[in-house]
């Protein structure tokens, strides 16, 4: 079974990636699993300055999923480049760095700093719902998306993946804006803005009041959005949102994704990330495919 996939000019050995924020920088799981079963590594979001994130609690369980309101805690771009990148590079995998900014100019400044040849793509986080500025406030406005992506386009030669938020009326408008501004791919979806209430304390369970919903609960929404975007854009889609099994991953490919990212389910079941490639091959073979890339977009719609 041919497992290689192409995301624009980027060739991945297989279409399985960890989702940003659910994998740290790969350092913890490398002690327990062979990371070469992945197509690459997607970093936790990197910002210009160190961020401490939101107050605790930041995690709440929901039916078939969870909320998080981490708030992009990370040590900042300087520490990332000086310390963490060298550790990630040791895994010898393509590196995708997720970049998040308060201001449109932050994305440009961050992109300019990502010069290492092992960094194969930049994933622009225009979708985190847990911060006051940047991110989702850009990703819910097609003009803002276009402005940020075209500015980053001018600043870097690296492929740009734009991670979009599902918290919009029409996801295709956002995808088309990213494509028009020169994005090489889009990543779909980030978490859904959500809330959990503790009736005993009459308070939202999260200190941030709201958080981002992920896990199997969001998968049907994510699939629908991948499918809608696949039909209107020509750049590849990296699909994610609640993938918890090989069937889920294949459903994303069929709906139009060229690769998938696995997030919160891999935190509960880390082995899933590392068995996924083999399981995809077995199932794809049983379904009559000879390569994983040919599955992309093969979904047959009812008239």
């Amino acid at each position, binding site marked *: 079974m041919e497992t290689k996939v192409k995301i624009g000019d980027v060739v991945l050995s297989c279409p399985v990636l960890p989702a940003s*924020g*659910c*994998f*740290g920088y790969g350092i*913890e*799981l490398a*002690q*327990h*699993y*062979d990371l070469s079963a992945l197509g690459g590594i997607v970093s*936790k979001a990197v910002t210009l300055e160190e961020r*401490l*994130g939101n107050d*605790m*609690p*930041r*995690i*709440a*369980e*929901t*039916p*078939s*999923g*969870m909320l*998080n309101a*981490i708030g992009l*805690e990370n040590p900042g771009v300087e520490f990332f480049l000086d310390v963490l990148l060298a550790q990630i590079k040791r895994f010898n995998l393509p590196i995708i760095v997720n970049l998040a900014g308060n201001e449109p100019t932050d994305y440009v400044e961050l992109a300019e700093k990502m010069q290492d040849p092992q960094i194969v793509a930049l994933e622009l986080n225009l979708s985190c719902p847990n911060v006051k500025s940047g991110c989702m406030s850009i990703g819910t406005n097609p003009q803002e998306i276009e402005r940020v992506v075209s500015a980053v386009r001018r600043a870097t030669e690296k492929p740009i993946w734009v991670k979009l938020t599902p918290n919009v009326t029409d996801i295709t408008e956002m995808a088309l804006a990213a494509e028009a501004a020169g994005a090489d791919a889009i990543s779909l979806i980030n978490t859904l803005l959500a809330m959990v209430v503790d009736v005993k304390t009459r308070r939202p369970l999260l200190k941030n009041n709201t958080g981002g919903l992920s*896990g*199997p609960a969001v998968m049907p929404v994510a699939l629908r959005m991948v499918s809608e975007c696949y039909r209107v854009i020509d750049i590849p889609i990296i699909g994610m949102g609640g993938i918890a099994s090989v069937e889920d991953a294949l459903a994303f490919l069929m709906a139009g994704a060229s690769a998938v990212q696995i997030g*919160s389910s891999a*935190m*509960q*079941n*880390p*082995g899933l990330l590392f068995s996924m490639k083999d399981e995809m091959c077995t199932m794809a073979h049983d379904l009559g495919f000879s390569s994983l890339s040919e599955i992309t977009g093969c979904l047959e719609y009812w008239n």
Partner: protein
Amino acid sequence: MVNLEHILVLEKNEQVSSKVHVLTFATEGVPQSKPGQFFELKSPYFLRRPIGVMQQSNNKISFGIRLVGKGTSALCGLSPGDRLSALGPLGRGFDLRHVSQPGDIVIVGGGSGIFPLLYLADQMRTSGLIQGLNQIYGFRSAEECFLEVEMCQHKNNMTLCSDSGGLDFHGHAVAALEAFLAEASAKPSAIFSCGPEAMMKSVVEVGKRENIPVQVSLETRMGCGIGLCRGCVVDLKDDSREAGFRRVRCCKEGPVFPGDKVIWS
């Protein structure tokens, strides 16, 4: 590479009080945990449940589980022969270097925080390095006390406290600690604590006043338990940082921390 995920087979499910079960599993191939370390046990709901080790020896591991919600109810509903996925051992346990110092050790626990302390006490006893081990365990009422004589092989120097009376000490575990320190012939070399946050905070205050180092094992809402998501952070005082503190992961850098460094929520 060390296996992270293990399939445990339940051998015994004992209900030790109305709200507490002790689950004992066979542990073939599971690395030996240190007192204070925990496992993330699979639940039928989305998140795993982080549970501290109560005992691990002779290819068996036990967890004390307090019924607090649907996840813990599901765990307590397991039957012998059932298989359960567990990630671990996780986190850093108690720092036992203090144990080699001469002097008594005091362990202060409350509620489900008592379970990891029972393992700590057991390991200290078998290490034979300490001169005296004193355990103080608090419950809201005598009915909630789940410590059976067989669970505590050495009940010597163990004080069971109940807020509403009916046990060895009528009052809070912290009051029992203060009473113990007032009468102790020599100053203990360390205090280890696990339980409700208010209790641990008070124990740390007592430790500061008496100049005794306190280690606390914290419980936070965890996302993954394995250091990936930064959902469970704790702030520790750190004068070398501009902000005066640093933010660490409870699951990875903890759950045991020096009590005087913890910035309580």
